Structures are given as structure tokens and as C-alpha cells.
């Protein structure tokens, strides 16, 4: 597992800034902004670097670019399930109130387009994190604003679709084609067959999609035995020697 602060696709100059005090230097804001732009285009994702950008905005609110922030959030959606999205939210201005408790609170909090955008993306995140995939797609398609918010992220829908497929593959050995079509927002049996074959290596047989066995959907019972090492008895052994002497 790659450590949270590392990223295989991260360029050296970004790494240098992140590991030095320049990460606080407002002049590096533009460097990080270019970097998230690049991530949007080449479909890579570097959570730790994007958090550094949000931190610069946190310390220097006058530099905050709403479009860049929403791009960071939209990118974070494409790596669900993960804490990435909520870690980003924690660094945003508190008045964004991403999860208004009531519709009145929501109306009162939406003092700007930016706040509305953050709340809309947070709603998408909740739907993905709670595995309500059908509602995710219907929400995404319900309002043109969503299309605007995800427009800069190349392959947004495809990236999300792949993540959903991965999660399904961990839990299911087989699933009805109808359910999967809805979850993946893929229309028609042919399109579904092509997607699961090309992307996942699964097969559609009649009304059922079969997922080959993998480490996660195997769910094997086992008995884990205790690890026993000599070091655990070091104290007893030492005591034995001490008393003998």
C-alpha cells in the first residue's frame, strides 16, 4: 500500500514543495493549481498535494478559486470509497456547511454559488459512500449544475463507473444484470456486456452477471492461530537466569 503522503504520478518539483516549508508559501498556489488541472486532464489523483492547495486557500482566503476547489472535490469523488473527500471538506471555509441538516438550513447557508456547489458535490459524495449508486446517477443527471461541476474532470463518469464495478466485484459473486445496469448507469444488455467484459473481465449470462472469484468475494472461513515467538517469553527467561545467579 502506498503511504498517504506519497503518489507514484507526482512530479519531483511538487514533491519538493510538499516536503519543505514552501508548502505554506502563497506563491506556490499557482503551482498546485496547475497540478490539479493536470490531474483533471490525465486522470491521475494526488490527494496529499491537493490538500496542500486547500490549506493555502485556508490560510489565504483571498486566493481561493471556487472552480479549482470544486475540481479538487470532483476529483476526490472519483476515488471513493476513501476519506479523500471528507479530508478536503475539513479544510474548506466553515461557511460552506457541506451537510446542512434541514432544507431551511440549506436555504440559509447558500449565500453564494460556491457554497451551493460544495453542498451539491457533498451530496454526491454521500450517495457514493453509502453505495446508493442508482440515486447517485439520477442526482447527477437531475441538474445541469452537476454537469458544470464535473466538466473539467476528464472521464468523470467512467472513473466513477469503474470504482462502482470494483466495489461490486468485492461483494458479489453474481448479480442480476438489471441491478448492475442501474448501478453503473449503463443502458442495455449489450452495453453492459461490453463494459463488464472490457473493464472487469466479467461475463453476462442471460440475466445474470458472474464475477470470478477474487480475494474479497471469496469469504472463506478460517481459524487464525496465535503468533508465538521466543521474544514474548524474554522476561520469563531472563528472570530465570537472574534467580539462578
Amino acid at each position, binding site marked *: *500500500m502506498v*503511504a*498517504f*503522503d506519497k503518489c507514484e504520478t507526482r512530479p519531483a518539483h511538487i514533491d519538493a514543495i510538499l516536503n*519543505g*516549508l*514552501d508548502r*505554506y*508559501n*502563497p*506563491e506556490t498556489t499557482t503551482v498546485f493549481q496547475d497540478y490539479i488541472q493536470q490531474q483533471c486532464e490525465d486522470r491521475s489523483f494526488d*490527494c*496529499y498535494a491537493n*490538500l496542500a492547495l486547500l*490549506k493555502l486557500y*485556508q490560510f489565504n482566503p483571498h486566493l481561493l478559486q471556487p472552480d479549482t476547489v470544486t475540481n479538487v472535490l470532483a476529483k476526490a469523488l472519483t476515488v471513493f470509497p476513501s*476519506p479523500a473527500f*471528507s*479530508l478536503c*471538506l*475539513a479544510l474548506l*471555509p*466553515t*461557511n460552506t*456547511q*457541506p*451537510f446542512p*441538516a434541514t432544507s431551511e438550513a440549506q436555504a*440559509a447557508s447558500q*449565500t453564494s454559488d460556491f457554497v451551493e456547489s460544495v453542498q451539491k458535490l457533498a451530496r454526491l*459524495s*454521500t450517495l457514493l*459512500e*453509502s*453505495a446508493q*449508486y*442508482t440515486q447517485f446517477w439520477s442526482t447527477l443527471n437531475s441538474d445541469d449544475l452537476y454537469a458544470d461541476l464535473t466538466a473539467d474532470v476528464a472521464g468523470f463518469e467512467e472513473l466513477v463507473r469503474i470504482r462502482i464495478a470494483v*466495489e*461490486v466485484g468485492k*461483494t*458479489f*459473486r*453474481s*448479480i*442480476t444484470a438489471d*441491478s448492475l445496469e442501474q448501478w453503473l448507469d449503463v443502458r442495455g444488455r449489450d452495453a453492459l456486456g461490453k463494459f463488464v467484459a472490457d473493464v472487469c473481465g466479467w461475463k453476462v449470462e442471460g440475466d445474470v452477471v458472474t464475477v470470478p472469484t477474487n480475494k*474479497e468475494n*471469496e*469469504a*472463506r*472461513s*478460517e*481459524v*487464525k*492461530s*496465535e503468533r*508465538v515467538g521466543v521474544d*514474548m517469553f524474554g522476561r*520469563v527467561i531472563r528472570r530465570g537466569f537472574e*534467580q539462578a545467579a
Partner: protein
Amino acid sequence: MSYEDRANARPNLNDESDVEEEALVNDYREQVNYEDGMSELDRTTSLGGSQAQDLQAQLTAAATPLEYQATLETKFASYDNYCSLFHYILNSEGPVDLEAPSYYWAWDVIDEFIYQFESFCRYRNRIARTGSNEEEAQLLRENPNTWGCYSVLNVLYSLIQRSQITEQLGAMKRGEDPIAFAGEYGNRPLYKMLGYFSIIGLLRVHCLLGDFSLALKTLDDIELNKKAMFARVMAAHFTTYYYVGFSYMMMRRYGDAIRMFSHILVYVSRTKNFQKGGNGYDAIAKKNDQMYALIAICVALHPTRLDDTIHSAVREKYGEQFYRMQRGGPEALPPHSPDFDNPAVNVDPVDHHTAIFMDEVKNTLFNPTIRSYLKLYTTMDLKKLAGFLEVEPEQLRSWLLVNKQRSRQIRWVEGGLLEGDSAIANDLDYALEDDLIHVSETKAGRRLVDWYLRNLARVY
């Protein structure tokens, strides 16, 4: 532009000609009839007898809490005191020849410095939100950089750099002599301790500002074990584990969070008797209770076998009320001067972090229920289980997906705190064959080593 250059635009310790800062200070002094206009620099160039006493008084003051009802003037003055003291320590010619009043002094100073920063930010946000005190609001509006994030971070990073503590810790990790890497400052206990505790201070500040991954990254050079320097100061030991555990929790690494909270809670319960009445005991007792609440939350999200002492304490305190989860935290700080003209936008950061955390809690709240049902079966029809739970089958499919995801967590094995391997965090696993749930269980074999060791100890 380096960080130090950058800091020139802020209240600053490394640049003696900070005009802006000086102007702010003078301005402020006029307003409150500041009596003692003496510059700290003059004082340090000719350190005579009485002045040396002054300095000792200042050192003691820096480690002493402000009165509970301290006025805004006192808080401003305290900030100035810290600035001049740290300026003196960091920017005199060569290391200053000072003896810290006590062994705990370095920790107390950093702790109190951050505590005052924290309470000042809270206070300022409250004034801005409630609009209750126009006079104070005006004063705060005019001094946006007093107790600013950049100044506080600047102090901590400067102390870390001056003491070359990172290099020293690196050497210790490699098994080399840290003194060879300490430099002329870091060789002195005063600098070394201030630098070391500044790392712990940074952990806390990052955490309060909502940057949980950077908080954990900050501890890269410190190994969390009983031999660590922080372990010799109870409050430092406690603070470290509290904030590391908290950061892990916000990163959804509940297993790691539980490990941190348990470690320190067990430690506290074992040392309870000889801390009572000691400095800062009340603060520790309060945080201690918060931590039991946090551990209750983590266990609800991630069933774990706890240490017996902890387990009974958690049950005693939170048996029936696992769901009242806000009690323990999160803590948070507003990162910059609030908007005094728009009270409504100054949402309390604690509410902000709580809302974010609660969204995740809501997504996973049903997990324990599902697990308790699945435990009873080896195979189960999804629609039947949905009937038991009184939910739609589609809802149950979602829950099963979420529960599966959350039972895979990253868990620390070795290296930096942000490292870790994916681990199955649950003894219960399952897979769906269409609507048929196959349940499997990983059973732990009997644990004999502990039993054996305990009985051996009794016999010997």
C-alpha cells in the same frame, strides 16, 4: 521565495525590521496605555543583573496559564511576550545562555503558547459570530495578525530548524549519536527540548486546523514508544497520543485510532495515583473522558477486542449511548481572522468538522446491526434479511456494500504513521451470490501466551 521570506509579511521573528508588525504593536500600545514600551532587543544586548531576573520571570510567565477571565488586553500582551521571548531565543547572536526554570518548562511553554492561540482564535470567532461586543470586535479587526496562524507556525518551525531536532531524531533512528548532528544550538537542552516539543505542538495545530494527514506526517521523525522523549513528560505523552488517535479517526483508520487511544488510556489508568493534584491534571482528566467517548465511537464503527480495563470503562460510561457521538470531539479552530462584517458566515469550525464526521457515521451506523444478524447464519436470503430489518432489499444491498468496504481498513505496520497495509478489520465476511448471502467467519484460536505469561509471573 523561502518560508522565512514569506514570513516577512507577517508578524515575524526572523526579521528585526518588520515595520508592519512594529506599527501594529505601537498602535496597540497607545490604545491600551501600555506602560512598558521597552524593546526586547535592547534588553538582550546588555543582560544585566536585574534584567536577568526579568528574563527568568518572563520564562516562567511563558509557561503559566492566563487567568480564566483574562481581558483582551492581557491576551494581546501575552502574544507580544511570546513574540519577544521567542525572538530573543531564536535571533540573538548565537545560542542564548539560559537555564530553563524546570525540566518540564519547554513542554509547558509550547503547550501554553498553543493553548492561548487556540482560545484566542475561539474567542475572536465568537465575538465575530455573536456581534456582542463592538469595542472588542473593532480592536480585533484592527489586529488581524495577532495570534495568526502564520506567526504560530513560524515560531514552531523556527524552533524545529534552530535545534536541528529533525536531524538529531534521524540520527537516533539510525542508531547514531545525535550530538554530532545537533549543531551549536541543538546541543543545548533548552533548544533541543523546545524543538522537540514544537513537533508535538505542530501535530496539535495541524489537527485543530483540520489538516489530519499533515498532522500525522509531522511525527515522521518521532517513534511512538515508551523510550521517546515525550514519554518523560506526562502531558506531552498524553497530548501526542490523543491527537494522533484523533487524526487517524478522521482518516477513517479506526483500528489505528483505537490502538492510540487504548495505549494512552491504559497508561493513564495505571499512573493515576501519582498524578493527582499535579500540574494540568484537570485538563488531562477532561481529555481522558473525551477519549473514552472517541474510543466508543471507533469501536462502534470498527468492532475490536479492547484491553479489559478500557472495555469495562467504556461500557460503564457509554454502554447505552454509543449514538451520542458528538460528546468527544472533534476539536477545531478557525484558520484566519473571521469576517466581522458578516456574522453568519463565521460558522464554528467544531460544527464544521462534526458535520463532516457525522456524515460518515450516518453511512455506517447500521453496520453493527447487520453484523449481529449475519453472525447467526452461514447462508441467508437477502430478501428475508431485509424483512427482518424492515428495509427495502435495495437498501440492504447498499448496506452490505458499505459494510464490506468499511471492513477493509488501512492499518499501520511499520514506518511513518501515514503508511500502512490494507487489512480485514472484521472477523465476519460475506459474499453475495445474487440474493443469497454466504457468511464466513474468521475465528481466533485460543490465546494461550498471555495466560501462560500471567501464570508464570504469579508462580515465580
